[in-house]
């Protein structure tokens, strides 16, 4: 208990320090180097192919979009979006097209002007099936891009939707046609151009030394002005502990993925700070609703809705979250995050009620007949395997706490720690009982359709690994995504979330805050929920503390 109090105090100190000492002061002097510690190489530096968060950071600083999403993460219409490559845009009266007017001063880092043909090329290449990009599935509403002149790119849409502006801008950083047009999309990953990206962002690419560093430098002639930092270097460590040690020892200035248990160690260093931000991630213990041995049959345990509800009811989520995260996470509301403007934080939940959970299990015929207190029915014990990735301490701790809480309800949980790829493979094949998963979502709440909706439940096509299917949920989500009025969208989403929460295809566990560590010499701008690095061009280093 004393240890927990100690950690809690340190967390409070850390949060206080983070909140007080981290906000940017306008007018920081330009210059200085920011060294970021990361635990692995980027996968690829091509915007449409990026799948790791490290690569996303680099790509987002080197490439620009037509417009950038605002900090509120609004995805309906163009409210909150700020100009980037497009300095203005015009909606057609029927909203089936948007004309983006390219900033005449925008240039690629090799000096070529950015043209509307680059925008058209970006769309065409992203849709090329041989490229194999997940983005293609997200821009199916875009019919084409026409280029009436070199400074105007007109997006044509199949239908008017609330998120059409978001689809056209957020999903597609613009790529230079003159660099890529001679390379077949299937060969992009392996090309030399991929090793030396040329973009139009406020930082230009300098070098990528595998397993050592990636470096970008300020593009002093950029059409948006030079960033305040002169250089950003990602110091690549092979794993999390080495990356963390480099940050703690002062070799780097910034560490993006601090865990709650690291905070006391960080706070021992007077020049280090901690800052938290709302992330777009949520964790859950997902039940497989289909029998792993025969997908045509319901799961012998989790096929029953009332039993799933009883398991949720037997789980004290608030205590679990507090034990694992202290104050750095909230119990998850459902398959969503509080950062979405469309999420109602008062979604009706299944309350923690252990006696009632026991009664429900009794009524379903699962009775305590075994000496170890485990329930059984018709000779079958109420027992299942909960799979977790062996690399995630947080998920292992969550699993242990769930195991203990469900034991009190007479449910036996076997924890299976698996290599991350093995776990994903088992989930993909629906060959699991239950698994603790995490989705890191995008600003649009629409990804819930793939991860929890009927379209994503089939093994051949989707990431709804638990095979939860409810047409009512699907209908509410579709209505929400089709709604132009934010109030209506929120109302439909609330109904959708309440439907799925009551169906309990998962125990909704935690919505963790993102935690970063940084050196006091670096002055941060606000950290955006979907991309903490979005405002790096506004970060600065105190005068006299610059690395040459």
């Amino acid at each position, binding site marked *: 208990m004393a240890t927990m109090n100690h950690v809690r105090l340190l967390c409070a100190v850390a949060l206080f320090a983070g909140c007080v000492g981290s906000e940017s002061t306008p007018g920081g002097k330009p210059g200085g180097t920011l*060294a970021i510690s990361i635990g*692995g*190489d980027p*996968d*690829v530096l091509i915007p449409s192919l990026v*799948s790791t968060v490290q690569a996303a950071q680099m790509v987002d600083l080197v490439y620009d979009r037509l417009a950038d999403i605002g900090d509120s993460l609004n995805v309906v219409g163009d409210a909150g979006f700020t100009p980037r490559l497009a300095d203005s845009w015009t909606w057609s009266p029927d909203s089936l097209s948007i004309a983006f007017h390219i900033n005449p001063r925008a240039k690629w880092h090799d000096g070529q002007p950015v043209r509307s043909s680059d925008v058209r090329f970006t769309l065409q290449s992203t849709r090329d*099936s*041989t490229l*194999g*990009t*997940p*983005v293609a*599935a*997200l821009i199916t509403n875009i019919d084409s891009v026409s280029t009436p002149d070199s400074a105007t790119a007109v997006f044509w849409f199949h239908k008017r939707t609330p998120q059409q502006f978001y689809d056209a801008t957020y999903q597609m950083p613009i790529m230079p046609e003159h660099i890529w047009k001679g390379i077949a999309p299937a060969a992009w*990953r*392996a090309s030399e151009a*991929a090793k030396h990206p040329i973009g139009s962002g406020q930082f230009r690419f300098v*070098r990528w*030394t*595998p*397993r*050592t*560093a990636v470096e970008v430098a300020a593009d002093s002639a950029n059409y948006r002005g030079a960033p305040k930092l002169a250089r950003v*270097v*990602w*110091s*690549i*460590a*092979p*794993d999390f502990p*080495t990356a963390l*040690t*480099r940050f*703690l*020892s*002062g*070799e*780097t200035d910034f560490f993006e993925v601090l865990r709650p248990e690291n905070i006391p160690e960080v706070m021992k260093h007077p020049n280090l700070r901690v800052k938290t931000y709302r992330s777009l991630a949520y964790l859950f213990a997902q039940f497989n609703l289909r029998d792993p041995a025969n997908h045509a049959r319901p799961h012998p345990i989790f096929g029953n809705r009332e039993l799933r509800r009883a398991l949720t009811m037997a789980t004290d989520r608030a205590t679990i979250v507090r034990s694992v995260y202290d104050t750095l996470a909230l119990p998850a509301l459902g398959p969503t995050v509080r950062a979405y403007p469309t999420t109602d934080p008062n979604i009706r939940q299944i309350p923690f009620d252990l006696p009632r959970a026991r009664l429900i299990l009794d009524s379903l015929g699962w009775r305590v007949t075994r000496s170890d207190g485990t329930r059984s029915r018709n000779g079958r014990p109420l027992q299942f395997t909960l799979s977790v990735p062996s690399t995630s301490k947080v998920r292992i701790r969550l699993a242990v706490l769930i195991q203990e809480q469900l034991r009190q309800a007479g449910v036996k949980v076997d924890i299976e720690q698996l*290599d*991350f*790829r*093995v776990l*994903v*493979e088992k*989930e*993909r094949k629906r060959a699991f009982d239950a698994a603790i998963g995490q*989705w*890191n*979502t995008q600003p649009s709440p629409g*990804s*819930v359709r*793939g*991860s929890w909706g009927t379209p*994503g439940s089939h*093994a*051949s*096509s*989707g*990431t709804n690994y638990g095979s939860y299917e409810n047409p009512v949920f699907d209908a509410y989500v579709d209505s929400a995504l089709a709604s132009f009025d934010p109030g209506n969208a929120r109302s439909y989403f609330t109904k959708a979330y309440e439907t799925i929460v009551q169906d309990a295809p998962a125990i909704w566990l935690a919505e963790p805050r993102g935690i970063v560590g940084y050196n006091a010499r670096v002055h941060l701008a606000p950290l955006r929920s979907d991309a903490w690095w979005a405002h790096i061009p506004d970060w600065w280093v105190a005068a006299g503390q610059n*690395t040459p």
Partner: protein
Amino acid sequence: MLPYFARRLAQAAVIVAFVAAISFALIHLAPGDPFSAVMDNPNVSESVRQTLRAQYGLDKPLPEQFARYVGSLARGDLGWSFSHDRPVLDVLATALPNTLLLMGVALVGSFSLGILVALIQVARRGSATDHALSGVTLLLFSMPEFWFAILALLAFTYWLPIFPVGGSVDAVMHDYMGLGARIGDRLRHLTLPALTLTVLAAGGVARYQRAALLEVLPADYIRTARLKGLTEREILRRHALRNALLPTISLIGLSFPALLTGAFFIEKIFAWPGMGLAVVSAISSRDYPLVVGGVIIGSIMVTLGSLIADVLYAWADPRIRAH
């Protein structure tokens, strides 16, 4: 001598081919594939994964993949690294010099240190120094490499921060240094991993050398040297050591595999960008060609090492040469 080496080379080739086939089968049998991780994204559909698998020929049956791989191998092509998006040969060619540097320094260092310690022990045999050094060498010999390396990393980069935390150069500043500073930077990064590997390997060498020295000390030629009035130091250096070095030379060949696996651990822990780090990362990312390529190069190094030890042994011992 020549037929002997030809026979040894043929044996080595068979071993390498066998090791390559086994490692190819094993890594492909592991669940998941290079593109499993992209599925951890609610927006990625199975069709994207299938497209990627087809691009790299992973949709073909395993025997066909193996036949293609053997065909490439026959042309000297180790395949394409999925995780580096480069030819495996390029990846390993970049990493191998780092591994050889680490192993080379550790090999020279561990044998020099081990022989020196053995000489001190034998010169003071039976004394407290001898017993203490025996204890230390036994401890080092039996200590798990990864544990000792982690301890060294924590001790000298964090608690007492006199060395950098891994890597082969300062990721931020190295490219902006002058030549002298660059060399210094590289040495600073090399010191701790090389020292760790050296100290670990020296324990075994010292114990082996001490036993060999004690074996030759009762010999007649040593007694003759004593009768000639040579000092104990000269006897050890000029007569005992030269004869006792023969078994130690054969130890070089034997220690090569251990040194290579040790280097793999050390590289992973100290983020030293050598072959070990590349192969270990490739295993977790299911980069099949890089894993098999690394294993092939590793087994070639081990068989070559043992061959070199045989040559050295023959060169050092006229009896073997004559035979």
